[in-house]
């Protein structure tokens, strides 16, 4: 089991964003995390990535109980995340953002040419179209930014890739590319967690679907065995005849 989340809770003032949530992802598996707006999906992602510390609950990674107190800890474990709010430095250019925190270097000196070469290759391989790569990210379109954020997550050697609504702003082709990429990551034996509101995409790409509702677990389905109706029912909390009781 690559990741095992148990009983995680997180409260923001009046709002119990997560309430004893469990979740697991295996190597070579794509788990989709779905749920209504405000269900707590992004909060869970942030817990796993070390962006916030949960009020309670435990995390296991590759069999060992781990404490993830800051993003750095998650990265050290091999957890690589695309955040819903992208988290780019708008004042830096594309290359700067792609390699942020893991710059290619010799001693402390950055190897700019090498980074730019790798960046261009990666962007090309993902079919990302950015006309002026040296402009600050502030100048990019919504989809271009998302592409940069996704590309970023693939640098290094991640063991678990988390994508929070990766295709929300992407065009048709890029979306297909990303879904294809997710499958390729799984085939390389990585664990992948995807959040999306697009149930068609989710069904196309995931092995398992985990549903959150109002901060709690509301279902865990094998994608192959489950109808769309059942998932929608779990998301909305309305009874559905096909719900597997």
């Amino acid at each position: 089991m690559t990741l095992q989340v148990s009983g995680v809770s997180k409260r923001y003032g009046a709002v119990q964003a997560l309430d004893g949530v469990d979740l697991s992802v295996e190597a070579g598996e794509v788990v989709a995390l779905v749920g209504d707006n405000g269900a707590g999906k992004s909060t869970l992602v942030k817990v796993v990535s070390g962006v916030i510390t949960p009020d309670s609950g435990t995390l296991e990674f590759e069999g060992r109980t781990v404490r993830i107190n800051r993003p750095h800890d998650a990265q050290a474990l091999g957890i690589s995340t695309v955040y819903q709010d992208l988290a780019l430095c708008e004042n830096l250019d594309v290359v700067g953002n792609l390699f942020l925190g893991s710059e290619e270097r010799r001693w402390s000196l950055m190897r700019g040419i090498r980074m730019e070469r790798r960046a261009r290759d990666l962007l090309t391989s993902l079919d990302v179209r950015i006309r002026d790569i040296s402009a600050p990210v502030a100048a990019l379109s919504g989809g271009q930014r998302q592409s940069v954020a996704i590309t970023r997550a693939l640098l290094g050697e991640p063991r678990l890739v988390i994508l929070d609504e990766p295709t929300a702003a992407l065009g048709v082709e890029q979306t297909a590319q990303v879904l294809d990429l997710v499958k390729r990551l799984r085939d390389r034996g990585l664990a992948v967690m995807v959040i999306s509101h697009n149930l068609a995409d989710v069904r196309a790409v995931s092995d398992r679907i985990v549903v959150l509702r109002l901060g709690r677990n509301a279902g865990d389905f094998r994608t192959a065995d489950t109808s769309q109706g059942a998932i929608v029912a779990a998301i909305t909390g309305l009874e559905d005849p096909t719900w597997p009781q």
Partner: protein
Amino acid sequence: MASVTRAPDRAEPGAVLRSAGDRLARGDLGPLPVIAGLVVIAIVFGTLNDHFLSAENLTNLALQMAATGTISLGVIMVLLLGEIDLSVGSVSGLSAVLMTIFNVEHGLNPLLSVVAAIAIAAVIGLVHGLMFTKLGMPSFVVTLAGLIGWQGLLLYLLGKEGTINLPFDGAIAKMSDSWLPPVLSWVTAIVIVGVYGGSALVSRRARAAAGLPVQVLTWAVVRIGGLAVVLCVTVAVLNGDRGVPLTLVIFGALVVALDLVLRHTVGGRWIYAVGGNPEAARRAGINVTAVRVTAFVAASSLAAAGGILAASRLVAVNQSSGGSDILLNAIAAAVIGGTSLFGGRGRTYAALLGILVIQSITNGMLLLNVDSSVRFMVTASVLALAVAIDSLARKGRPGAAR
């Protein structure tokens, strides 16, 4: 695919000339508007007083820049994070006093005195940085407390003495009265142009070899030529009087070295990242606390260096060392030079250009024979005018007006 800029095997002049023009079109005029402001200042004061553009006076100007300019460099480190350091004046004064006490009263050798004073300043910066990051106090308040408290310590250390003079012929005083021999100054200028040009060409080659787009050759040549002209004019003018002052060389070297650090090292990149979006930097695994603390340490250390330069120039320290308008001038120089108060944008050359603007105005005003009240009003007007040129040139560019 088609729209990802690929490197042509040979530079296509058309395509790449565009990239220089594009910068301008993007509103990224770099230092050009500030330089236009400086030209205005030169014309105004050059017309009002014959001596303003004399070799002797420009040498004075060079001497007057180094201390506050160095402090301003430290301020830039903190401004790049979107924070502020109000303590740099007091810290510069305190360090100068410490250095003087070590040297004059305890007979410590000058170099050790300087090193010890800067080391103590670094510890002060560490304290500021930790109060900011670990206690979460606003940097404004931390460094305001520093401004008051370190001045208190300065007064306490000076005690009843008041002023302590440095030995006139000691190494520390000599530092402000040393001049590069003409030959050496020309050799230095040539070496700088050579290294700059060489590295530009080498990196151009390397980019081409890596299949990355390169600047058109003429543009590179223009830049190298521009640098050569600026350096040669400076050296020629200063050699027309006493020579190139050592303190100017020290300040210039600091500007260049820190610019290289900021743009080419990982640490420099992280400073920009934290200044641009601290949360994004944190999520990228950057140790934001360490970056911030480092910047405060750098600010205090550079303040100390500036204070020591000031003491060397005055050949004394007294109760008002580091006081007066040093703080405001150091921050203003950074801002006038184009450093954003909101973080993430600016280069060390801002300190150089900004302090040039401020000191030329001060210097020019001092040549005029007017009452202080008039002097203040004219200073304000010229300052506003010089910066207005810059601001108007930048206007319309995305994210302007900040």
